[in-house]
């Protein structure tokens, strides 16, 4: 097995094009366990962390860009980012432990394509875009377009994600991410729920996006719940409709981590709770901050 650490995006793409059994990695917190267990055996491992733009967080007037290999600890520690995207920041802060978060990246979390990846529902509700580099230049995808099933992505073998673009959080908007795990830390989501809302001046909901993790092969949006919330103030009846829609949107499996019944029921509970938190945050976010 060969280890290479290109210093530019171009160098990396040409490496990938010339070596068919190459695999990129960022924090390697998924890659190393997979190598150890014998599940994967790439001939070349391409370290993305030496490419500058992949390991930085920037914000200009309209958007944030987060390098795909940036340790997720940056997102929880960057006060202005976590103030603006508390839900996404909390999702990143749920990955593993402090030690893991000093290595783990959004790019790895997304492209490992685990149905339970914590940052993905939070990225989906925030409309995050992935900038993908390949031999023919770059293309931009919605995060929701990247994963097609467990371990499967729409990226070609010689493509990788350079960075994520996140539009600034509008006024009167807020996000939230909650997950259920039996333990408080070092665990994998049995159910994850992300929500983002924007409020109208009268306090009713103008926009809502809800997404669930760990309850289907990929992250699922909940259009019925989003619909139910529009124009409402998230009264109890609406929230119950959100919960019912979330449960119905699940397509989970029975496994050692949870049962179908449990996942469906708790998806409803977490979706409802995430909406409530997102609304509280949206209420606090007006012009002045």
């Amino acid at each position, binding site marked *: 097995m060969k280890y290479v650490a290109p210093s530019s995006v171009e160098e990396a793409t040409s490496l990938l094009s010339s070596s068919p059994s190459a695999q990129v990695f960022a924090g390697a917190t998924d890659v190393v366990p997979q190598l150890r267990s014998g599940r994967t055996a790439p001939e070349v491992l391409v370290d993305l962390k030496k490419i500058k733009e992949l390991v930085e967080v920037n914000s200009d007037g309209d958007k944030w860009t987060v390098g795909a290999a940036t340790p997720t600890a940056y997102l929880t520690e960057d006060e202005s980012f976590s103030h603006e995207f508390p839900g996404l920041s909390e999702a990143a802060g749920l990955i593993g432990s402090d030690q893991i978060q000093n290595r783990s990246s959004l790019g790895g979390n997304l492209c490992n394509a685990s149905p339970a990846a914590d940052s993905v529902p939070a990225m989906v509700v925030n409309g995050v875009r992935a900038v993908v580099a390949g031999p023919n230049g770059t293309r931009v995808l919605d995060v929701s377009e990247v994963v097609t099933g467990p371990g499967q992505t729409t990226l070609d073998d010689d493509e990788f994600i350079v960075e994520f673009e996140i539009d600034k959080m509008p006024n009167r908007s807020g996000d939230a991410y909650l997950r*259920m795990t*039996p333990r408080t830390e*070092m*665990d*994998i989501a049995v159910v994850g729920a992300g929500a983002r809302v924007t409020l109208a001046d009268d306090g009713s909901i103008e926009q809502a996006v809800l997404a669930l993790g760990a309850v289907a092969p990929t992250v699922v949006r909940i259009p019925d719940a989003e619909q139910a919330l529009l124009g409402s103030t998230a009264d109890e009846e609406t929230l119950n409709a959100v919960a019912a829609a979330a449960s119905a949107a699940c397509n989970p499996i029975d496994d*050692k981590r949870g049962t179908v019944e*449990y996942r469906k*029921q708790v998806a409803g*509970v977490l979706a409802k709770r995430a909406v409530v938190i997102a609304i509280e945050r949206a209420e606090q976010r007006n012009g002045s901050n």
Partner: protein
Amino acid sequence: MAITEENPGYKWVGTRPVRPDGVEKVTGKARFGADLILPGMLHGKVVRSPHAHARIVSIDTSAAESMEGVKAVITGADFPDLAANGAHPSEIDVANNTIARDKVLYEGHVVAAVAAITREQAEAAAKAVTVTYEVLPHVLTVDEAMADDAPLLHDAMITKGVDPAPEEPSNIASKILHERGDLDQGFGEADSVVEREFTTKPVHQGYIEPHAAVADANTDGRAHIWCSSQGHFQMRAYTATVLGVSPGTLKVTAAEIGGGFGGKTVIYLEPLAVRLSQRAGRPVKLVMDRDEVFRATGPTSGTRIKVKMGVSKDGKITAAEVWMAYEAGAYAGSPVGAAGMTAIACYDIPNFVVEGYDVVCNKPRVAAYRAPGAPMAAFAVESVLDELARNIEMDPIDIRLANAAVEGTQASYGPKFPRIGFVETLEAIKEHPNYTADLGPNQGRGVAAGFWFNAGMMSSATVHINENGTATVVTGSPDIGGSRQSMALMAAEELGIPYESIKPVVADTETVGFNDVTGGSRVTLATGAAVVDACRLIVEDLRGRAAKTWDVEVDQVEWVDGQAQHVDGAQPPLSLNDLAAKSGRTGGPISANASLNSRGVGAGFSTQLCDVEVDPETGVTKVVRYLTAQDAGRAISPDYVEGQMQGGVVQGIGWALNEEYIHDTEGVMENPSFLDYRIPVASDLPMIDCAIVEVPNPAHPYGVRGVGEVGIVPPMAAVGNAIHDAVDVRMTELPMSPIKVLEALNENDG
């Protein structure tokens, strides 16, 4: 801290100095099982069965043997056939569990082992060993194993303890029975009777350090083994049995140990490492991966337990009927015997029947785990007692006080209790502020109690006085819970010199007298008593030397504060330092040995109080407050006593809420990693509050009882009782995972 008997002016016993092994451990210098590297050392890898139950048709090692770097490949055929040699059945089981001969009895059972120059070569060679199996039907639980037409693990297993002996073999290795009084009469006198059935899953000890062994065999048949274990004398004995050699040919050095909890009182790798080393002519290291630790070591039993108990209106238990079946795993020897003896030992009950079955099934052979057998039984009994207290509207502590065993009570398992401190632990809980702390919404409070015998057994110690008056205290008890500090504290007290002047060490099997395993909470009691004996011999010797120096009778000399003093002050005192410096002129080196069979154990009791908060919509239980009161007899090292109390509780909370072996239908373990085998992490727990109770054990010079185990007995029931108090569901299955709690809540609503 609740002290029931005043500290009689000890200077060192009962203090909290820095631990003697601390610096080496925090600087990473301490050597654990896998740390040793010897010149020319090879790396071994074990080949394990993928099947839960199968006959080994053939093993082809030729491909592996011809691979690059491979120096030895062994199978069961490389070990003596103990059955053919007429060995004791328990010895044959140890051998067959170490490496299978003709049948594999669980997924992970060893069938072969290889040694090669690098670990990668060894792993590749292990994969190249071809084993042909004839897969057999398997049984995974006591229910499956006890079914009429169940496939048998051992064709000749006739249930012991049944009269007349059954004619047909079965998977039931033995039956136990304890009876007193008249059940019908007892239940007739009851005003409230509760009957419940409980199930628990196998759980692993969860030590962080995987098993590891290095062996270096000589051509004269002798071998040196370094391993992490709870008792290197025991490792020597078992390894000698499996290899068919005399124990004296083996020398075993104890590595530092990263947790054992009972699971490192048995052998797995040692005989394999020795045989590989003999075949290869080089030292061999074997280290388990975490998944091997889960698949093939530990755990403790899964169980099914039925309990029926009755109480009168005034809270007196009138009758108890307990039926239990414990999984032994692949070979006879579940802890059901201890379970039967401990199940109702906290209480003075006039009428009872306790019946238990030791049942083999196609899972790894169970090993001791902290108070083996007692926690599951206590989960059942203490849950039922909680329900009875509710039925008669009695406080949970008061109902236990009304029935508590005291000095003179005829224990349910036979003997009369000497002085014990159960009542004091109940009172300590009642007096603690946690008992009346406010509870929030969805919070509840539970009480449970537990009993453990504590062991005594055999120990040896040697004390050397160095030329500057410092002392080396040598024992053969691996330190798994702070025993070196306790040894040093007792020696400091006896010799009258500072704790810092004492170096406690754990010596190998050739350097100190025999010591039984570090287990049964026995080391501070028994090895501690040996240290005290040896120190007293030293003091006698020192008084004699002072008498000689002063030319007086020895009874004119007292030993006070680390110096010899003349009773009338007729001579200036002689310090240990003075005497040590002059030892060459007063009789030679100052040193003493003591070996003993423990003079008596002190039973341990623990009562615990747990507050939980249950999320009624997700079933997640969070422990918000926890108090444990335990009778230590005497806390030689209060830091370590609290550490043991807290450790037991934490493991019990894990057992209560999330830990379990999950097997698929083929008998393959699905969660052999710490990700999906969920021991608690720090953020799952509140600080565990401790109330040390000290009711001295009359059989120990300082009153020590032993504290390592009983703390894990009450937590499952304490948590379950608190969940009931919080959300009104009675949990009868472990673990009380969010899924199960939510199911129970849904049933209540429906």
